[in-house]
């Protein structure tokens, strides 16, 4: 039976929301394709030190101490089986830190489809490397489509269907259904030897500045910032997208921006998504995807709502409530 594998990132002692979206998509696909859905996470086993050249040890368990709540969440999220890859290296969202353990999971399961939450912390490091290692096609910001014959489709037109040959890796942004599974699930523990890649050393971390965000940004124009209704909807939009609200001096004077949200006209931003509201004066040349509200469609813009800003924004926010 084919295997659909979902990488699970943890956010503290909970499953990352983005990983749960990927799991929901995996459930839909596995049910449609007649595949087994595995949810795999990497955890540090501080109690053991294996020789780097020893082989992975397989243990079937009902629960792993300390991870019971996570296993239940994954079972309810639709997983058929949970794989816990135990590594003696500290877990961090870097291939150098968890790549060996993740490779152990891939080698053990040999999946046909590997899913990551598009916004999960490890996705940027692990997904493309996984794809390269198994020679897979890569879909970015994919979502599930269909009822009986479910497929994955990304916004560039790439797709994965049950009838396709070859492996695929996808960063999933949306699942059209949220399944509700049982509380019980089979747990497989893989004790994987070998630690981190010594060529990369994580020296520390700190909160990032807005300037460096790689996620989503909503940029508010100065004129738009004077309208309380637009500001309120801009905040709702930013919240829905998990985005940072940024703007110029006028928006700052209006007190509508979060700390660090004031950007100059030439401040370089390279988010994955930028939504501009009104005539926002920001340099979004590095944005992966660009949506403009209150502007005419132009070259290299993914979407634009011409017309008045307040009406267009209000309609979009209302529409997104149904998503």
């Amino acid at each position, binding site marked *: 039976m084919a295997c659909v594998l979902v990488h699970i990132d943890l956010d503290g002692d909970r499953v990352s929301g983005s990983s749960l979206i990927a799991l929901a998509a995996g459930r839909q696909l596995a049910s449609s394709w007649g595949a087994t859905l595995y949810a795999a996470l990497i955890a540090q086993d501080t109690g053991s030190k294996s020789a780097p050249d020893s082989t992975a040890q397989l243990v079937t368990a009902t629960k792993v101490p300390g991870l019971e709540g996570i296993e239940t969440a994954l079972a309810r999220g639709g997983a058929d089986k949970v794989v816990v890859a135990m590594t003696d290296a500290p877990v961090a969202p870097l291939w150098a830190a968890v790549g060996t353990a993740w490779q152990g999971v891939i080698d053990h399961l040999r999946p046909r489809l590997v899913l990551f939450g598009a916004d999960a912390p490890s996705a940027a490091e692990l997904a493309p490397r996984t794809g390269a290692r198994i020679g897979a096609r890569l879909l970015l*910001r994919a979502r599930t489509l269909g009822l009986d014959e479910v497929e994955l489709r990304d916004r560039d037109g790439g797709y994965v269907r049950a009838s396709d040959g070859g492996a695929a890796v996808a960063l999933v942004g949306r699942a059209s259904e949220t399944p509700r599974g049982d509380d019980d699930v089979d747990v497989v523990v893989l004790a994987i030897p070998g630690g981190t890649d010594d060529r990369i050393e994580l020296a520390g971390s700190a909160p990032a500045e807005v300037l460096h965000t790689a996620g989503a940004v909503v940029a508010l124009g100065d004129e738009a910032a004077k309208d309380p209704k637009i500001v309120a909807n801009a905040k709702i939009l930013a919240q829905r997208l998990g985005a940072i609200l940024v703007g110029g001096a006028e928006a700052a004077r209006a007190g509508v921006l979060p700390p660090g949200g004031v950007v100059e006209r030439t401040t370089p931003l390279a988010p994955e998504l930028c939504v501009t509201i009104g005539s926002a004066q920001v340099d979004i040349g590095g944005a992966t995807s660009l949506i403009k509200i209150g502007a005419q469609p132009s070259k290299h813009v993914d979407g634009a709502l011409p017309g008045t800003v307040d009406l267009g924004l209000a309609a979009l926010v209302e529409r997104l409530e149904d998503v």
Partner: protein
Amino acid sequence: MKVAIWLGSASPVRSVRWLDGALEAAAKFDDATAIAAGDATWLDLAADRATRLGLPSVGVPTDLQLDYLGWAQVAAAASRELGAKIILVDEASRPERFPEVAAIAELRDYAQVTHVVALAPDGALIHASRIAGRQLQTLRVRGEAVIGVRIAGAPVDEYPTPIPSKSMRRLDLAGIGLDPMVLAHRALPPRGAHQAKKSVERIAEHLSVHVVK
């Protein structure tokens, strides 16, 4: 430390600012060479921007349209030809390029670091800061690595049309050990022309893959 900077296979989508920033990051190293692949217009632009920063450049002319694994094969082969132990990748100028960081690292069996926003060579060590969600990680890189950078240069409103470069060293695919017929197996299927979405429904659909639950 021999360094290559992979500029990719097509010109930046919106701005050369990130291309310039990646080249400036590479220019911090003593021995860096820019690599680009693709059509002649793009190679001329890449050579021009590299030359402005005093960097030599290598071009791989080809009209192939490849996926991330295909371009990674080109970048890996060209960087191997140059003897590069550190490969920087401009991952901000075009969205499809960031997966090439991992793919090149896999092909060269190098370490990888993506989403790097600051870089400082320090002898045999490289200090790098990378974005991981809303965290800024500080890393030390020792030895062979592929580093995806998203570092901006100075604002550029307009730039002169580059003239065909005489200084760019041309490498053909066969010369770096790649068979174009084999490489073509990684060709991307033709996609329709990009058209901006204009309705609330279609834009909401576009944004739906970013919605936080």
